[in-house]
């Protein structure tokens, strides 16, 4: 556990030393702030209670584009710099390395989300905010991002170039978001139509977010998103292990 904590600290340090973290943070708060201001104005104009769900949905869409930036360097950079060999020979297991990198990415995400909580307090000052529903929305966002991050981590472990890892992660994330739309285009009357549609509709992480944003915790998306996360972490560990066999 101590090893894991040390690895997480090391990874977090890397994030906060690079200017990328602050560029992402400032950009994200600025875009979120603009949306927040517009939404507050619209809620007031239409005499509606202010709701965070639409803001969080847009934030989720932005985070899908931000995710490759966060995950692309996780393992690809170590390979590129040759530090992966040092890490592999250190007294830590492959699993610990992968989990530490994943945990650091997730903690960094939470750090990015932290300023948006200030907006919730601002909204509560002027109106009413459904705090438990908003918290559930954040939970959904973290679960969705953890699934996307685990995919990004896996892709990063396969690539030795950060840019390649980032581009591939972006394409995969984008395809996942589009999977529901693609499902609608699959002809339902063919032999493969129905199962293909079912699978494509199933894998869209964005679809699962809807429930969370509305303040509902459904066990199905929780299990699905956790399964995706665990599976890709498992695959990443296998990829790191495979370096020893080759």
């Amino acid at each position, binding site marked *: 556990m101590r090893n894991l904590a040390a690895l997480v600290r090391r990874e977090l340090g890397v994030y906060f030393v690079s200017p990328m973290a602050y560029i992402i943070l400032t950009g994200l708060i600025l875009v979120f702030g603009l949306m927040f201001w517009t939404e507050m104005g619209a809620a007031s104009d239409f005499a509606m209670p202010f709701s965070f769900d639409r803001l969080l949905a847009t934030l989720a869409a932005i985070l899908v584009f931000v995710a490759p930036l966060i995950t692309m360097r996780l393992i690809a950079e170590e390979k590129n710099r040759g530090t992966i060999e040092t890490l592999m020979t250190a007294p830590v297991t492959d699993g610990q390395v992968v989990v530490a990198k994943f945990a650091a990415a997730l903690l960094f995400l939470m750090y990015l989300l932290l300023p948006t909580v*200030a907006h919730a307090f601002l909204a509560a000052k002027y109106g009413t905010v459904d705090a438990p529903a908003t918290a559930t929305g954040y939970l959904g966002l973290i679960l969705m991002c953890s699934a996307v991050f685990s995919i990004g981590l896996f892709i990063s472990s396969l690539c030795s170039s950060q840019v390649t890892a980032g581009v591939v992660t972006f394409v995969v994330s984008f395809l996942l978001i589009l999977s529901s739309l693609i499902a609608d285009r699959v002809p339902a009357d063919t032999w493969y139509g129905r199962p293909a549609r079912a699978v494509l509709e199933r894998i869209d992480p964005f679809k699962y977010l809807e429930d969370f944003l509305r303040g509902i915790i459904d066990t199905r998306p929780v299990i699905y998103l956790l399964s995706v996360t665990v599976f890709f972490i498992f695959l990443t560990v296998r990829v790191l292990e495979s370096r020893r066999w080759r």
Partner: protein
Amino acid sequence: MEPTKRTDAPEEVAFTRRRRLLIWANAVLMSAFFLGFLVAVNVISDARFTRFDMTAEKLWEISDHARKVVEGLKHDVVIYTTPLTVGPAVSQNRSLPNAWNQVSRLLFELSAINPRLNVVPFAAGTESEQVLRMNFTGLTDNCLYFLVKKDREQAARKVMPIYELYEGNFQTGEILKFHAESKVISAIVQLTSDRPRKVYYTEGHKELPPPSQEGRGMSFLTSRLGDLDHVEFKPLDLGQARSVPRDADLVFIAGPARDFDPPEIDALREYWNGGGRIFLAVQPLTPDPMKLLRDFIDECGARIHRDIVLDTRRELQAPQYLRITAFGYHMINQGMLNVGFRMVSSGSVDPAPKSPRQKAISLMQAGQWAYAETDLRPGARIQHDTGEKMGDVSVAAAAEEEISNPTDPSRPTARLVVWGGVAALTNQFNTIYGTANLETLDYIANTFRWLMEVEQRIADPIQPRSFKMKPLKLTPESKSVIGWVSIVGLPLLGVVLGVMAWFFRRK
């Protein structure tokens, strides 16, 4: 000295390859098993899932009654939602967007219970528009359109305006009572049940024919009632039948010109005493005084006078056209505030309760310039004579009577609505350039709906909700503060943190 052992000996290479192959096979198999395990977990979780409503006001909690109804759906139910119109409707009623939002949430949650219930947002130019135009008389915004296809031929349908689903504060936008769950569930129950509501219209007394598409027919009204409440109109010859059928939800008597026979009156009386519902629209000053029918209606709590109400301001231009703006405080008249209704050729009708078990109220009153002419002669000048009622003459009344032994125990009251004129119900006065005038038709439909009362009965177990989340009201100053904090203040924090990190790193 022993020679060094070569590691690329063929047998060692083969061994290493075999080992590597085994390791790869092991990794692939493990991954496949793990994937299989996760898929199994997901399949099980799909079958046995739970939903927790985390909202402070339990916005998503569906009552057991509603859940049972939706879970037990045997037919596919499609609810088309027309978009919220940002325009006069919203400026007049600021609670509409809030209510629309809550209704959307409710429909979303209901559709999650059973895939047989589908919610489809209406979009112009798409299949949804085609379907709606094929199945409904007219399309209006801010409505829910229910469509239940039971077989290829038959489709039950219903329109439900959003404003019917709640009581709200038009100024602040606050929702005071939210009835959407009970109303939507009632509509689903009504549409999926095999029995449509049946309105029997009487024949044999020179009545106007409701299904007729002519100007004096009421096809627009019957069609609208079909849209709204899945109502079927059926003829009833009381002279032959001698009793009102047991499946009658309502008996409609549309402008009779000849009196009813005593056995027919007895049949109506028997129906009334069992908790019957009657809608009578008379024609004023018919040659036949129709004493028996008038006496029977009098027993039920409303008095029809033998006169015609005229507007003195319109002496030369059809004085029989009355613009009604005074409506009695009654459920039928909901939404008629500051709205006018045109009543044509109407006699006066007064509420006249006969016993403490009866309640009666005037539904519509002609204005202060109207009077009840009792001796209208062709060519004679219209003039108010002494003894004739003048000002606020009642032209429609509703009566209710508590019934001790109702035929249907869930309907313990008999209900009656009497209109002094039938013309306002006809196609001629409910169209605008040949298309249905939904505003007047919907007001008339309210009368039928109150009389039939089915929705209220179905919805009883589901309680209305109220919301603690108040609509947001920002002053220009507070908007400005929010703008500065969210667009300048907080992003600046990110910049400051970045500069600090850069500074300390350099140090």
